[in-house]
Every structure is written in structure tokens, then in C-alpha cells.
């Protein structure tokens, strides 16, 4: 039987196993919306902005490991998704975005709501397609999912002109697809893995540094096993948190610009660096000239282009982290060389010394709410098991530092692009992927306003997300940089004319709370977490002067961290604005 392109589209999603499509309708996608209306296998979730749809698909993908799907119309519909697509691209998240397009006969005519969607998104997708013939539709959709989810994952856009969704053809969804120009590797090179293990077991001051690739590649089990087998210290990047259990004594915390003293010092002093699914981002390495000066480096990554991009690598291994780690475990177990226990003990003694500094220490207060204390309490009350999304800024860094992630896919943030506005829609996606689980969005009063309209989506679908707004009345991270590097000229970082967040939440049909006393933090969080079927917006009025420490300023090396003034016994006498 012949089906229309719109019907084929819906059947493809069904056959691909897609549960949810996050989207927003418009002229060019009306045939598709009509086809969606006539079935209930694929559920459409109406967001309030296409950016929200893209981030929700992204949050769904990050929290579940399955591809996220968004559907938008042509023109402004698809341009609104660009931030979401770029966010997914920078963090290698598998999403497939479908955009309506003007009819093929109109393409190139500056038709109403026409944009070159393929052209606009080209630099921020893994791949994209324009489907010009309904006969190609099913195979293209199959390719899109295949490309998005294999190798180094990433977003794929499929642009579908309106007439293609009206034309008819036989439906056939290919079970498998092979592309002559795309063959992602899986297994690593055995010889290289053997060489790497030889080096790893001989290390005197080893360091295991892992990134988002461990999360994306389902590598945290074998990683945890390998690190425990060796007894080596392990650090995670911002994107890698949860890849190794944060409460394990072998974990030395996050590294990089706002990483722990012990993680960054151990990086600086190590003699063998084992990088797994990490990409030596500038926020991690600091000044490249001063990066890991004593280390011989092993790098495991699925993407050959990530290897030796920023830092030269002695033993590169291209392959899926899970497969490579499993092979490494076997080789370590069979290895004749035993780990040098004495050297390792001395190394741990040194690390524990760095650790004893307690670099995340902050000044406690019973007058004003310290943002770090809110996150610590949140961690305690959710027993470290919640799905936590965040926006971008100080609150993001404090969450990364103080919420101890023991499991992968629980920490959902925009690391690469640093997209304010990501947190709430991402929480929507995570909540759909995990109904019944606690999903918390930690945000700031600036970030939350970038996609605040999604509160309406949460109401429509009864999503009981908990929003923790760390409200410091500043774009805190911007203010911090202005304090440190611009002589306290707080240019446009002050958030004036803030809404009453309680009323705002209530007007969307949610529960709003404002908390301004440290003594009330625990009670408020408990009460909110108890409201299992309601979205609760907790507006925490926090210390305006608090900064994120430690900090490696731009151009500094990893060993050149700036510590919190409370380490000098100095109380903060800083004045704002």
C-alpha cells in the first residue's frame, strides 16, 4: 500500500522505536502533524519554543542513552533550534531534528518561511539531509538515526519539504544500513592496547583522566573496574562526572578550571596519563605549554580527530571506550608486571596531602544562604541518585563540585557550548525518559529566564521537576570574572527587575517557594521533594558575593590555582556594585 510522506515519517519513527517527539508545529510541517494526530504509537510533546524542543530531545538522549527527536517547522522554527543543535554537537549528543521545508518547487525563491536549513546548521551537525523525493524518505531517516547514534554521536538534521510529505510511495523501512563513506570503528587496535597496558602498569605516578566519552560509550562499569583493579587515582571532566563513582576514595574530583586542587596537581605531577573519552579541552588543560609536563600519555577515543588535536599523545587508541577498557582489564589481570606498590603508596601519600587542603572549603554562614550548602543538602536528601540538569554559570560549577555523582547519565549540563537556557527543557526530556524519578534543574535567575516559557510545557504534561534557583541577583559567573579581571567594573552583569518567582511559578500552575534563611534550606528541599506530583520552583536567595574556587585563570597552568580566600583565614570583605 502506498503511504504519504507524512505517514511514512510517522511509521519510520515508530519502527525506529521512538517514544517521544519534542516539537512545535507550523505550515511546512502540517501534513506531518496531521499524520501524528491519527495515531498514538509516537507521542508528540508540545514545547513552548523550538529551542526548548531541541534541548528536551537532548536531555532525553543524555539521560537515557537513546536518541532524542525534535520536529519543527521551516524558517523560524528551524532557526530557533540552532542553539539546541549546536549544544548537542559540542557535547556529542545523539539527536535527530526534523524540520519542515517549503515545497521543492519553491526552494530558492525566498518563499514564505524559507531558510536554507541545511546550510545554516551545517557547521553544527554531524550530518544533515534535504529529502527531495519521497522515495528517499525512509532510507534517509534510517541513515539519520544510524549516523546520530554510532561512532562519536552527534546531532543530525533532516529537512523535509512540504510536498514530499504529501507525495505517496510504498513504505519500507530498512532494518540495517551501510554507508560506504561512513564506517565508525568499534574495537581498538590490540597491539596499541597491549603497549598502553605495558606503560600503565609501570607507572610510578599514574593518573586516569576521563570525559564524556565514558558516559556516551557506556564505559563507566569497565572504567570503575579497571581503576579499582589498579588502585590508581581517577579524575573526571565536567562532562565525565558520574563516569566513575564520586564517593569512591580513588576519585580525586573534577579537574580543570574549577576542578579540585588534588586533581589538577596530580595531573601536573603525573608520569603516566591515561585519557579516556576526553578531548583535552582548553577548560581542562589551561595553558597547553604547562600541561602535564612529566607525563607520557595514552589516549583512548572513538574519534581519531580528537587524538593529538591539542596535546601530543604517545599511545593513541581509536575505539569505543567500553570495548577498549574491557580489553585493558583482561591484559592488566594477565600482565606479568605488577603495579609498583611502593611507588603508588608514595604517590597516594602526596595526593592525600593535596587533598587535606580541602580546596572546596567555603565560609559557612547562618545569616545568608551559601549556594554550595544548598547543593550539598540536595545531594544528601536525594542520596546522590537524582537526575540533575543545570544551566550555565556559577551554579553549574557548584553543582559539579558538590553533588557527588556516583552513576552515569545523572549529570546533564551543557559543557561544550555553555548554553544558558538548557537546564529546564533538558529536565523535561530527562523526566520523560525517567518518569517517577527525581529530576532537579539547578539554575540561576539569569539562566532560567532564557527558556522560562517551558514551565507551561511542564504544566501540560504534569512533570514534577524540582527547580533549584540559586538567586544571587547577578550573572554570577560574569560578575566573578569582572571582579577578578576587570577591577570590579560590573558592566551589565546585574540582574535588575527580576520577576517574583513565586508568583511566576504559580501563574503557570506550579508551586513556588522563596527561601532566604540558611535555617530554612533543608526544610524547603524536603518539602519540595515530597511533592511527587508537582513542579516546585524553589527560589533560594543566596550570597551575592560568593565566587567559585579553586580557579585557574586563563593562560595559567594546572598547578597555578587560585584558592578561596577562606584558606587564608581571611573573611571576605569584598564589596559589590
Amino acid at each position, binding site marked *: 500500500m502506498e503511504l504519504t510522506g507524512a505517514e511514512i515519517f510517522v511509521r519510520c519513527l515508530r519502527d525506529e522505536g521512538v517514544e517521544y517527539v519534542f516539537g512545535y508545529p507550523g505550515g511546512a510541517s502540517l501534513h506531518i502533524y496531521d499524520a501524528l494526530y491519527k495515531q498514538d504509537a509516537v507521542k508528540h510533546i508540545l514545547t513552548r519554543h523550538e529551542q526548548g524542543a531541541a534541548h528536551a530531545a537532548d536531555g532525553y538522549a543524555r539521560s537515557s542513552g537513546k536518541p532524542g527527536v525534535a520536529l519543527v517547522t521551516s524558517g523560524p522554527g528551524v532557526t530557533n533550534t540552532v542553539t539546541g543543535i549546536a549544544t548537542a554537537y559540542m557535547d556529542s549528543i545523539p539527536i535527530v531534528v526534523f524540520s519542515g521545508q517549503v515545497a521543492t518547487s519553491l526552494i530558492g525563491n525566498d518563499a514564505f518561511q524559507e531558510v536554507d536549513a*541545511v546550510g545554516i546548521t551545517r557547521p553544527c551537525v554531524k550530518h544533515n539531509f534535504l529529502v527531495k523525493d519521497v522515495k528517499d524518505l525512509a532510507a534517509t531517516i534510517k541513515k539519520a538515526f544510524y549516523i546520530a547514534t554510532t561512532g562519536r554521536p552527534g546531532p543530525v538534521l533532516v529537512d523535509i519539504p512540504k510536498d514530499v510529505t504529501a507525495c505517496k510511495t510504498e513504505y519500507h523501512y530498512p532494518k540495517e544500513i551501510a554507508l*560506504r563513506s561512513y564506517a565508525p570503528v568499534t574495537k581498538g587496535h590490540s597491539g596499541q592496547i597491549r603497549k598502553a597496558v605495558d606503560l600503565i602498569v609501570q607507572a610510578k605516578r599514574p593518573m586516569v583522566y576521563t570525559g564524556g566519552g565514558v558516559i556516551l560509550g557506556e564505559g563507566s562499569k569497565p572504567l570503575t573496574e579497571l581503576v579499582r583493579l589498579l588502585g590508581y587515582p581517577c579524575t573526571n571532566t565536567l562532562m565525565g562526572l558520574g563516569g566513575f563513582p564520586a564517593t569512591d576514595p580513588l576519585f580525586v574530583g573534577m579537574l580543570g578550571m574549577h576542578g579540585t586542587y588534588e586533581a589538577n596537581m596530580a595531573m601536573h605531577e603525573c608520569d603516566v596519563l591515561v585519557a579516556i573519552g576526553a578531548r583535552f579541552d582548553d577548560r581542562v588543560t589551561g595553558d597547553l605549554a604547562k600541561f602535564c609536563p612529566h607525563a607520557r600519555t595514552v589516549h583512548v577515543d572513538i574519534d581519531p580527530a580528537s587524538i593529538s588535536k591539542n596535546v601530543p599523545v604517545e599511545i593513541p587508541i581509536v575505539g569505543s571506550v567500553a570495548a577498549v577498557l574491557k580489553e585493558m582489564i583482561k591484559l592488566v589481570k594477565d600482565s606479568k608486571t605488577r603495579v609498583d606498590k611502593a611507588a603508588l603508596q608514595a604517590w597516594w601519600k602526596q595526593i592525600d596531602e593535596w587533598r587535606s587542603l580541602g580546596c572546596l572549603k567555603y565560609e559557612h554562614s547562618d545569616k545568608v544562604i551559601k549556594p554550595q550548602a544548598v547543593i550539598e543538602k540536595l545531594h544528601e536528601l536525594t542520596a546522590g541518585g537524582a537526575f540533575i540538569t543545570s544551566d550555565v554559570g556559577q551554579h553549574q560549577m557548584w553543582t559539579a563540585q558538590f553533588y557527588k555523582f556516583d552513576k552515569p547519565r545523572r549529570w546533564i549540563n551543557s559543557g561544550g557550548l555553555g548554553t544558558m537556557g538548557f537546564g529546564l527543557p533538558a529536565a523535561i526530556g530527562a523526566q520523560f525518559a525517567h518518569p517517577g524519578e527525581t529530576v532537579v534543574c539547578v539554575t540561576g535567575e539569569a539562566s532560567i529566564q532564557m527558556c522560562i516559557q517551558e514551565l507551561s510545557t511542564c504544566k501540560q504534561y504534569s512533570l514534577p521537576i524540582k527547580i533549584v534557583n540559586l538567586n544571587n541577583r547577578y550573572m554570577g559567573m560574569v560578575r566573578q570574572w569582572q571582579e577578578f579581571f576587570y577591577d570590579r567594573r560590573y558592566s551589565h552583569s546585574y540582574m535588575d527587575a527580576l520577576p517574583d518567582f513565586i508568583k511566576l511559578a504559580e501563574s503557570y500552575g506550579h508551586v513556588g517557594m522563596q527561601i532566604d534563611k540558611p535555617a530554612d534550606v533543608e526544610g524547603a528541599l524536603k518539602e519540595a521533594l515530597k511533592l511527587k506530583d508537582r513542579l516546585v520552583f524553589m527560589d533560594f536567595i543566596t550570597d551575592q558575593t560568593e565566587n567559585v574556587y579553586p580557579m585557574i585563570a586563563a593562560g595559567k597552568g594546572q598547578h597555578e590555582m587560585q584558592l578561596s580566600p577562606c584558606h587564608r583565614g581571611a573573611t571576605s570583605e569584598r564589596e559589590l556594585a
Partner: protein
Amino acid sequence: MRHIISILLENESGALSRVAGLFSARGYNIESLTVAVTEDPTLSRMTLVTRGSDEIIEQITKQLNKLVDVVKLVDLTEGAHIEREMLLIKVEASNGAREEIKRLADIFRGRIIDVTDTAYTIELTGNGDKLDAFLQALGKSSIIEVVRSGPSAIARGDKGLHL
């Protein structure tokens, strides 16, 4: 160092802009680029000339390989290869200069392919240096128009770049 990268890519609309976009987005330079369909109509062959340190060239080839439309590529400068470029040039050739220009074209094994009372159009093939030398020999004053194809190149020996 100068590198010549030969690429087989899907003969699809948009493939060229993916390659060009990669170079501009990552700040790599393109000295020249030629592309045309191959004997297999689903494939195009591109010859791309670029410059960069070994690390940059390594990144360029890796990033190119990552493009889904790129089927295969080779850095021809890694082995022996032949490089040719075509020059089409229109020069003033009035009474006094006609003989001299014809002689010059012959020396460089160029061919005059169009003639008017006052001008010659000459076709010349060779590597870039030879074309440069010919232009220099002609002198600026007589040149009306210059079109260069940019190099195409192929490896020496009996092996070819194909699927």
C-alpha cells in the same frame, strides 16, 4: 609545507560546501580546489591544495575523513606524484608583438587556441612553476585576462585512488 590532498566524495549537492565550510570554520587555508565527477557518476574527485605544519595537516585529513560525504582521501605529497594545472590566457598581440608571443608560447609548449587582429588566447598546461614562469616571461603589460584551473594531481605508479 604545501600538501595536495585528493578526495573522493559523494557526488551530492552540499558535499562541496561541507569541505569548504570545514576549512573556513577551522581556520585552515585553501590554496586551490578543483572538483569534477569521476568515471563513477556517484563520486566526485577533488584536488585540494593547502599549507600547514604536520600537526595541522594531520588534523585536516582527520577532520575531512570525519565528513560523512568523504569516501576516501590521500595526501599525495606523501609519495611520488604528478601535478598539472591548466592556464588560459588572453594577451594583446598587435603587429610587432605577434611573432614574439607565438615563439614564447612554443617554447613553453603552449597552444594558441583563439586569434583576433589584436589578441591571442593561449592554452598552457604544466605545474604551477611553469605557468608562473610563462606569465613572467610575457610581462604584465600585454595580459588581458588570466584563468588558472588550479592543480589536479595523481600518484605515480600503478595504484589508483578508488573505492
